[in-house]
């Protein structure tokens, strides 16, 4: 069920923009090749963005308070939930890579580059999940969390090389894309397409994503404490 959306993106956009790949700047790759890593990253954002909604349901039903009066360690609630999203991201990514292969995408970068892509997706997903959790714990409104998810994901994707190479973008978008975490993950994805993987790009982007995940994780912890104080 969760995969319906990325399938639509992959198949529909893959068809719609098929000829875009003939523009200079794509380097001759087929558009489905080009699109597959981007759709994988976008799917990660969309699904991890739901993370906070679970907190809101748990708050409303008193489940969170029930957990908090149990002697389990406080950190385990946040970590356990993030672990769930990490596993889900890995499973979804593997399925999406499989489907991309089925519809004709080829990842010349090899298995290790695909692993790096999945790792990047997991880190970006954890950042998104933590952000969503922080929002949920502070604002406690289902609508806000869902709206933030949609309002954030699409612009971030369009301001990255998810659909088009940066060389085809206006200059200001290129600048934004450079600082856009979604673009960092997509850049790792791009490296899976070419046999000559630039490991410098892969590792630096992974590092930036890890730093972002840590920062937003810290924000979520602080929001969790704020919730505890407000009970």
């Amino acid at each position, binding site marked *: 069920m969760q995969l319906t959306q990325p399938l639509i993106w992959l198949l529909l956009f893959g068809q719609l923009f098929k000829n875009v790949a003939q523009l200079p700047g794509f380097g001759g790759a087929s558009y489905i090749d080009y699109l597959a890593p981007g759709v994988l990253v976008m799917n990660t954002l969309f699904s991890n963005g739901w993370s906070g909604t679970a907190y809101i349901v748990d708050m409303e039903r008193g489940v969170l*308070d029930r957990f908090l009066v*149990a002697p389990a360690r406080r950190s385990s609630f946040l970590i356990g939930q993030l672990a769930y999203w990490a596993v889900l991201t890995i499973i979804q990514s593997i399925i999406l890579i499989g489907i991309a292969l089925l519809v004709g995408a080829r990842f010349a970068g090899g298995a290790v580059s695909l692993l790096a892509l999945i790792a990047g997706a997991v880190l970006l997903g954890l950042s998104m999940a933590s952000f969503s959790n922080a929002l949920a714990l502070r604002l406690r409104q289902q609508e806000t969390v869902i709206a933030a998810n949609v309002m954030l994901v699409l612009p971030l994707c369009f301001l990255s090389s998810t659909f088009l190479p940066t060389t085809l973008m206006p200059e200001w978008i290129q600048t934004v894309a450079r600082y856009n975490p979604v673009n960092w993950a997509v850049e790792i994805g791009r490296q899976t397409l070419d046999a000559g993987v630039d490991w410098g790009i892969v590792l630096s982007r992974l590092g930036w994503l890890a730093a972002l995940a840590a920062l937003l994780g810290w924000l979520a912890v602080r929001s969790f404490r704020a919730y505890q104080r407000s009970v």
Partner: protein
Amino acid sequence: MLGHLEVNPIMTPRSAPAAIEAQGLEKTYGASVRALDGVSFTVPRGTIFGLLGPNGAGKSTTVKILTTLSRPDAGSASVAGVNVLKHPSEVRRVIGCVAQKNGVDLEASARENLALQGRLYGMHGTDTRRRVDELLARFELSRDADRPARTFSGGMLRKLGVALGLVHRPAVLFLDEPTTGLDPVARSDVWAEIRRLAREDGVSVLLTTHYLDEADHFVDRLAIIDAGRVVTEGTPDHLKSELRGDAIHVALDAESSLDAGRQALSRLNGRLRDLSIEGTTLHARVDDGPSAVPNVLALLDGAGARVRTVTVSRPSLDDVYLKHTGRTFGAAARSSCNPRTSPRAICERCGASRCTW
């Protein structure tokens, strides 16, 4: 003279601390919402103790502090002899807590909810499974154990909620409004189970309620809490017997002067206690109520007040509440109701079916 020697139910041996001791708990939310203003009480071991008060009196806040969910601004508390503020994680091991919202994960089955709860308390595989089966049987949920909890009725959810609080065999159980919103049958089921827990398993129970009849019939001791303070504490019978005389409630016609009525009644000199007015009703207590009624009527008639109804009864908990807070429980409940949050025929907050909101 040994005539005054009484067994004090609070007295417990030194080696066995009280189930709960709260000392001067204070809590303010935000800048100005004073939830608790010095709450103190003691719950002897093995008893069912009730915190009675209208919504907003501070019952839930007290429970949150005692169950380590929230911290007081001042005061101290211990549960089963363990200091709540200094050793919260030890307290968490010995208490069970059933919040007002059940805390049931509706997407999971009853069995899954209970099993996860066991894990949260560090229980192991076979022990958890045995305990879960035991609780499912005890709360008559075995047949529905594997259905998602969202298909459960309100009564079943409440039972599951109580079962969740018992998985790790706590010594002290907290129940925040365990019967609010339940139909009479489900309510008496829940009560039977709470009694069994206290009588057979020796669990000490602290529960909050805003139902006077529950407080009157089911708890061993109770504390009446109003505006963040405990106004009185004791067994229901003791609290009622403290009120001398019979309760008399006189409802006057809307046109009658309440002041005239009050003055007329004060001429019953010596026999009248705690006269108060609420709306168009006079509340008071008189010695030998039934024989005083003709006198009361004559005095009011003489003052030109038209009487609609007169009720004479043994003092109830409502009269106890009236004496200590200056208003009846029903009026307090209504004043705490917010029409925006409870625009229902049966008021969610005060539980009254005739709540004027």
